């Protein structure tokens, strides 16, 4: 039996609608990607110019909506935990079907890909000669399969959830892991993980001080998995004040002051702007420094919030977990 909560219905309908619009945009994008010639004054080029405004606007709105819908997706997963026996948070709902984890990974990947496309689109529309129109439509052709994959996985995941089947809670998932990868996450030595985490943060600061967008992008790219790893392995235990609770989803719950929303927004924002600064530099855009500042500011916020909890715990209890 399928699980049809209002949240799931909204997500499925919106994603189906967005995929429909994206498919129309895809058809129109093919000719732009193939035939765009900015210098031409032919009827075909003028037609493509008109079409490109329309299609780029549609695609941009789809991607903006997908970014916002991600937050609603997380909120819905958290809500569904109350309906699934055994689930205590979004982790149980994600693990309820074999499609949940791939869906989550694809959604996060899409956030970065769609966001970077929007950066390129913004740079392109600020220039009178629209120099990246062809590139951005070619990129759209490459991104479209990710959009399809995300929508299919979401349909499969929500369609396969059985509300009568008992699912694992996050305590089981992250304390007695059934996958080797999660097992590795929770058993890594904390000092090594912390060392790697702060080393990469130092690399981000250094890249910013040296005003190197490439170094900023590389260090931010590496910072994404290391930040998630350190959160699961180390910092989450201090946020929960429980040595064996490693769940990255419970952070999103009211019991922990919704700190997860702050953490994940800061981590996404910081790393995303780090990558955006590199894109801007490659396109000769003037916003490189501004985006590097945003990147460092949000990365610093993330580091400050996660670091606060172990320090506060140590000051309060005089021991490390």
């Amino acid at each position, binding site marked *: 039996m399928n699980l049809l909560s209002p949240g799931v219905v909204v997500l499925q309908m919106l994603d189906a609608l967005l995929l429909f619009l994206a498919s129309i945009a895809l058809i129109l994008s093919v000719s732009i990607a193939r035939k765009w010639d900015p210098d031409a004054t032919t009827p075909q080029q003028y037609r493509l110019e008109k079409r490109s405004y329309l299609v780029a606007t549609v695609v941009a709105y789809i991607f903006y909506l997908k970014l916002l819908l991600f937050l609603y997706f997380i909120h819905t997963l958290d809500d569904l935990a109350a309906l699934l026996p055994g689930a205590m948070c979004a982790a149980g709902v994600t693990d309820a079907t074999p499609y949940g984890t791939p869906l989550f990974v694809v959604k996060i990947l899409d956030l970065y890909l769609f966001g970077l496309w929007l950066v390129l689109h913004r740079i392109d*529309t600020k220039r009178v000669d629209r120099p990246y129109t062809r590139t951005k439509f070619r990129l759209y052709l490459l991104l479209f399969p990710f959009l399809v994959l995300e929508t299919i996985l979401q349909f499969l995941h929500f369609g396969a959830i059985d509300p009568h089947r008992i699912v694992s809670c996050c305590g089981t998932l992250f304390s007695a892991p059934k996958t080797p990868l999660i097992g590795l996450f929770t058993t890594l030595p904390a000092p090594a993980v912390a060392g790697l985490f702060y080393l990469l943060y130092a690399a981000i600061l250094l890249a910013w001080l040296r005003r190197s967008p490439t170094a900023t992008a590389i260090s931010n790219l590496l910072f994404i998995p290391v930040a998630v790893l350190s959160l699961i392995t180390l910092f989450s235990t201090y946020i929960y004040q429980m040595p064996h609770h490693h769940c990255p989803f419970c952070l999103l719950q009211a019991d922990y002051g919704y700190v997860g929303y702050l953490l994940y927004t800061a981590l996404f924002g910081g790393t995303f702007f780090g990558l955006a600064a590199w894109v801007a530099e490659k396109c000769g855009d003037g916003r490189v420094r501004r985006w590097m500042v945003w990147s460092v500011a949000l990365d610093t916020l993330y580091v400050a919030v996660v670091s606060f909890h172990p320090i506060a715990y140590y000051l309060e209890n005089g021991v490390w977990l």
Partner: protein
Amino acid sequence: MRERHAIEVKSVSKIFETAAGSVQALEAVDLAIRPNELVILKGPSGSGKSTLLSLIAALQKPTCGEVVVENERVSKLPDDFAALYRRRRIGFIFQKFNLIPTLSALENVYTPLLPERIGERELEEKALRVMEEFSIAHKRDERAAALSGGEQQRVAIARALVNDPPILLADEPTANLDAKLSREFIGFLERIRDEGKTIVVATHDPLFFDLPFVDRQIEMHDGRVVGTRR
């Protein structure tokens, strides 16, 4: 040495798609206008004069060919850049003046300055300066709808010139005026031309055809240039 042009129209065609079929408004039009030149576009209704002006003003894009104004390919401008181009470099006087009836004369004149984000005081000063030039400053607080035809025309001219654009386009500017007001407009035109602006007037009003200060008359028919007279 290549002659410098204020406006170049290169092999421009414009086809409008309507429910009844395609309408060819312009067909392979070539035209070059020098800086500070006053050109009259003449021809019967439907000859393509207004379409040509709207392409020069980047209000529309051609079907093919291109329009270059002061070395900028305006027919290739994206919409937001076309708006900026119109605001900074084009003054446009419309046949029916197109004033906003609920705004005062002063507000109508400074409307093109609003996106420039200048202070209200400077906005009013600039608008009043050009209104005084055309003897309409005393009507500053009158609603546009309450102004006479002649007064509306002056407000429209002031609005077209408030940004000090290098190019002035006028589309049948005297079509709604009597002979006296039309002659007054022609007087204004001579003054504006003496300020160094490039002017293109689309009209079929015979009053414009024998003016001594007009540099060129271009005759259009069925979307094509059929004759030029200096």
